């Protein structure tokens, strides 16, 4: 083994850079077809995701609930940008870093917070927890905890849409770690072979737990598409307008031509992998560099520069969001835990009590 290879396998004292951001788009909101209202809505939505999770982290630290808690903070431009372009009845599925996705897909802050607390009023009735948010009515299909396992399921959602000829498309989101799973390759091959109307998106946030992307995956991630002749692009995920710009082209192409796409959206998570991770595998400088590119701050500056709103209006939105989140915390706290008998519910449809040796 060469000296440099040894170094590469001994991360202590050797910190890897996460990921390089491509250029952000130069187009302004008007060029992208967004109204001022759209921009303000998106600002509010991104800020809601941020405050929701900051409060969730506090509640976790206070011991209000247990389990894993993976925060999406830093990545909000991806969920908001993608969801803005998709239709409300397009299908979305994601991994366990799912709170932001749930919030943009019709799960209220109350139902989301209550799910974290494991309450009956949660978006999955307290049965799923942080990693398994669902809102089937809003075409949000989870919340999935096995890395990579939902990638073929995304293709299956798209398969059903194509079978039904309903004009809907499906979009599946996963982390850079999931790219290393075989499921991705089987799903890519099938999706391309069968021309499924599906969008695969890796949210490359630079790390799979503590393993930097270039330490866990060979070559550039987007190149996974090349072997399948799949259309692909790299996107700056710290910039809302860049996500929207690409998504407008991609969603249209998938809908019109029924072929899959693979987007590598480069982004960054500010917090640890989960609540127990102090993040020693990266430098403070790197974290600061990305925070300087913060999608919410960028949009706020844009709004002020373009005079889309005054500081007072922004403050009012932020206060309103803060209130919404605090109400959600109270709601979650005061909500009842699921009734004991619900332990046995929701296994099968129809006659629910087909449970072995249960009387």
């Amino acid at each position: 083994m060469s000296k440099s290879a040894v170094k590469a396998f001994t991360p202590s004292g050797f910190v890897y850079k996460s990921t390089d951001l491509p250029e952000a788009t130069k187009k302004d909101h008007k060029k992208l077809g967004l109204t001022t209202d759209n921009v303000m809505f998106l600002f509010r939505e991104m800020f809601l995701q941020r405050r929701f999770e900051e409060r969730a982290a506090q509640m976790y630290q206070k011991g209000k609930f247990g389990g894993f808690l993976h925060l999406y903070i830093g990545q909000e431009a991806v969920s908001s940008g993608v969801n803005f372009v998709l239709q409300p009845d397009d299908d979305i599925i994601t991994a366990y870093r799912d709170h932001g996705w749930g919030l943009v897909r019709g799960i209220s802050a109350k139902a989301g917070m209550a799910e974290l607390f494991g309450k009956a009023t949660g978006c999955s009735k307290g049965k799923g927890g942080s990693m398994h948010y669902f809102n089937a009515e809003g075409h949000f299909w989870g919340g999935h905890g096995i890395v990579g396992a939902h990638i073929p399921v995304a293709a299956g959602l798209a398969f059903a849409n194509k079978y039904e000829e309903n004009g809907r498309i499906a979009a599946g989101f996963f982390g850079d770690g999931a790219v290393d799973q075989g499921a991705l390759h089987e799903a890519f091959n099938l999706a391309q072979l069968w021309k499924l109307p599906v969008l695969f998106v890796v949210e490359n946030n630079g790390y799979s737990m503590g393993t930097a992307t270039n330490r866990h995956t060979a070559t550039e991630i987007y190149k996974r598409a090349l072997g399948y002749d799949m259309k692909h692009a790299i996107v700056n995920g710290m910039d809302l307008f860049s996500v929207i710009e690409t998504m407008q082209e991609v969603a249209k192409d998938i809908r019109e031509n029924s072929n899959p796409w693979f987007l590598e959206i480069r982004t960054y998570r500010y917090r640890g992998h989960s609540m127990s991770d102090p993040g020693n595998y990266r430098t403070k400088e790197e974290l600061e560099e990305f925070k300087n590119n913060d999608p919410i701050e960028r949009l706020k500056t844009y709004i002020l520069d373009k005079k889309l709103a005054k500081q007072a209006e922004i403050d009012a939105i932020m206060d309103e969001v803060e209130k919404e989140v605090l109400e959600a915390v109270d709601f979650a706290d005061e909500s009842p835990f699921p009734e004991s008998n619900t332990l046995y519910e929701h296994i099968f449809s129809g006659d629910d009590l087909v449970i072995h040796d249960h009387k």
Partner: protein
Amino acid sequence: MPELQFREAIRQAMQEEMRRNEKVFLMGEEVAEYNGAYKVSQGMLDEFGPKRIIDTPISELGFAGIGVGAAMNGLVPIVEFMTFNFSLVGVDQILNNAAKIRYMSGGQVNMPIIFRGPNAAAGQLGATHSVAFESFFAYFPGLKVIYASEPYDAKGLLKSAIRDGNPIIFCESEQMYGMKQEVPDEEFLIPIGKGKIKREGSDVTVVAHGKMYHLAVEAAKALAKDGIDCEIIDPRTIKPFDIDLVIKSIKKTNRCVIVDESHPFGGIASEVGFLIQRDAFDYLDAPVQRVTLPDVPAPFAKNLYDLWYPNAKQVVDAVKSVMYKN
């Protein structure tokens, strides 16, 4: 009544349900152009076309997952595994996704999906191609498991399975595909979770499903010559298991032998045996006995295979032992 092969009964069940419900489709390796690795889906491509009879690459993880997503989004996939041995490379989709998503979503997401194909040993195919998976799948909450022993049951149960709206493991057998039985022309359904007394008897209750049912029949014939009268119960569905039928029978016979193609540890015989000792302890005149595979992978050599695979003689001996007649 027409006589149907097992494979024809399964085919008819799929055809009838596909005519009835446009959301039902079949996918798997070689199911379309090749007419099925074991000719179960013969002619179905002609009738339903490539939209609904779909050849897949050898990507069990991929197409099982596509089935799961399609089921969540309103379709009713029938996913054929060339054999259940190959389901292992895709089993995450069955155990983590198909079986659990409804529960984790608090009942929001339905999962109407059938995984079917041949199961268990089929002669000298070696260790990777000979596994009986019914007890393995039955272990997991969220799955229903069916393993019919005869064409009539297979047809009625598969039709019920396709209408059930839940994830179902439907086990077949290469060695039974050619087996014939009269099956009525008129439509019929067999409820999931109901066993059947297929031979009435007074001395011993023999519980046997799938291929093992036929061993039990052979053994019962031999035992009858010795004046021992077996009652044979075919549970037909492994999960939910019709334990009430078994207990009722034991209250009459006071003796029981379970014939199970699983390996012994944690197999169906262990679970059913436990339930019997708990629920019928006072009625038993002898400990429950079982005939299973040994705790050994399938060997290839003919002589070793014959030693490995359960046979009617073992069933006869087990019955005699609970009768204290050997």
